């Protein structure tokens, strides 16, 4: 597992100092995937470069399994770098080496040789599904294949942390899927802790357990994706859940109007129908929809309720695990 403590980094800029990182704290539990997102200039790449031990922060600590790696030098620094596999931003494969040769690079650095090295390379090519491309040169591979080879290379020396900076930014949606699948397999089959920097919420949606939102060099939101989406006020919910349109005309016809977030098969499938039958209320879907976060189906609906026991129904939904936020509604204009 990896923790980032109070990381700060300042760059000299044309108009004074730029605080790229301003006290960043993160922790990623072993075997989970954290997505670091945020607007352009938020400091995502700076954070990635610090964690990759390519850039030295002004202050703060980066701990992998408890040991601080920030202040290391020389041989100790090189050894520490082997604990963190990095998929750098952009094309990073050696163009004069085959796919297998690229994957072998970290093993050469670690002094692994002979059949042991060959076996490990074969294992990793298998993990990323490119065994048949072992002898191909990067220029003979597609963008997605190159990126998967880069992931295989990052994993070759068995690091405990895998760091990827914008691994899908240059790829089309289909290819993005294949690269994300590989990152997910790395976590599932090798138990690595994954930190992925991205501007694409789709990456968070597909593979991240946790998310950290960076803005102006600060973490403004950090937690489990599924926890954050139940909080309608969170940025994560705003960008991951289906949008609900405002439609005051339609909403005026109901006694109560609420936004409901439902997480998991059981909740999405059964909660609303059961509420209507239990409390004898009429329930209409006014907007929103269904999506998927990783394997979990997640819904956000705007619902309009009619009936005596509308409030009780909403309360019950909330107790049963749905996240309910009432909006101003009802013909009486009463704040519910």
């Amino acid at each position, binding site marked *: 597992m990896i923790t980032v403590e109070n990381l700060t980094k300042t760059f000299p800029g044309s108009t004074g100092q730029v605080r790229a990182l301003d006290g960043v704290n993160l922790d990623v539990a072993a075997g989970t995937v954290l997505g670091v997102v945020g607007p352009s200039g938020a400091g995502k790449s700076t954070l990635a470069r610090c964690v*990759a*031990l*390519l850039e030295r922060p002004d202050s703060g600590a980066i701990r992998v399994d408890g040991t601080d790696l920030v202040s290391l030098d020389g041989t100790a620094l*090189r*050894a*520490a*770098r*082997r604990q*963190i*596999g*990095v998929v*750098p*931003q*952009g*094309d*990073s*494969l*050696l*163009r*004069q*080496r*085959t796919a297998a040769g690229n994957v072998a*690079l*970290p093993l*050469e*650095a*670690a002094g692994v040789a002979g059949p042991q090295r060959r076996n490990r390379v074969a294992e990793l090519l298998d993990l990323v599904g490119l065994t048949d491309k072992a002898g191909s*040169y990067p*220029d*003979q591979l597609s963008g997605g294949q190159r990126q998967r080879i*880069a992931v295989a*290379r*990052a994993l070759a*020396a068995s690091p405990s942390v895998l760091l990827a900076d914008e691994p899908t930014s240059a790829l089309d949606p289909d290819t993005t899927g294949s690269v994300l699948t590989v990152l997910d397999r790395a976590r599932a089959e090798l138990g690595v802790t994954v930190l992925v920097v991205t501007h694409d919420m789709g990456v968070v949606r597909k593979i991240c357990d946790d998310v950290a939102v960076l803005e102006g060099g600060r973490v403004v939101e950090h937690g489990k994706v599924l926890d954050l989406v139940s909080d309608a006020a969170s940025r994560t919910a705003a960008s991951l859940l289906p949008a609900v349109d405002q439609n005051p005309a339609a909403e005026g016809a109901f006694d109560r109007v609420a936004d409901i977030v439902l997480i998991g098969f059981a909740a999405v499938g059964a909660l609303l129908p059961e509420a209507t039958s239990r409390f004898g209320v009429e329930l209409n879907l006014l907007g929103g929809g269904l999506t998927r976060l990783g394997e979990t189906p997640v819904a956000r609906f705007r619902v309009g309720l009619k009936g005596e026991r509308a409030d009780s129904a909403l309360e019950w939904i909330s107790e049963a695990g749905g996240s309910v936020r009432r909006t101003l509604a009802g013909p009486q204009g009463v704040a519910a």
Partner: protein
Amino acid sequence: MRSATPWSEVFDQLLVATGETLYMVVVSTLIAVLLGTPVGIWLQLTAPGGLNPRPVLHKVLGFVVDLGRSMPFLVLLVVLTSLTRLLLTSTIGPTAAIVPLSVGAIPFVGRLVQNVLSEVNVAVVEAAVTTGSSTLRIVRSVLLRESLPALINAIGVTAIALLGYSAMAGVVGGGGLGDLAVRMGYQRFNDRFLWSTVVVLAIIATAIQLVTNRVARGVDRRRTTSI
């Protein structure tokens, strides 16, 4: 007006001179590449954004290299005569010319090599850094290997430059094609010598270019994909 030297005699002298030129160019290119490449690597490593940035050292090194490059070869030839005497106990003949030729080309090769190495994609180099590779390993397996085609072309450029400089070797009795052209062709108005040496020099330069291009392409694993 003397009658023209018979072709057979021109040919004999041309053969000797070609041998001397090739000897000077090949040996001095080898030495210059051998000694200039580390200079180029050092320049690139210490450059801003290099693997081991050392701004002051880089500036000093760059200054010395550029000073060496701006020195007229003829001056170097004369100045280095004493060094040559020390190294080879002889200051005449093609072997004696090799010392100033090599030394003169070292800074040239240094800059060429630095330029070539600086073209290697930063992301590729950083990827190697994150694997925990030592600087030496990165230089060998990444910087030099990735730019091998361009390095081979740089060797060709160096050899052709040295082919030109070797023409001045006559000053220290180095002989060679340039010397023949000047002595027989220019000073004695012997057109046969003048033009035949020019032709042979052109053939050698073209051959160097063709061979290095071919070898460079042969070792290159990049396939320029047309969009």
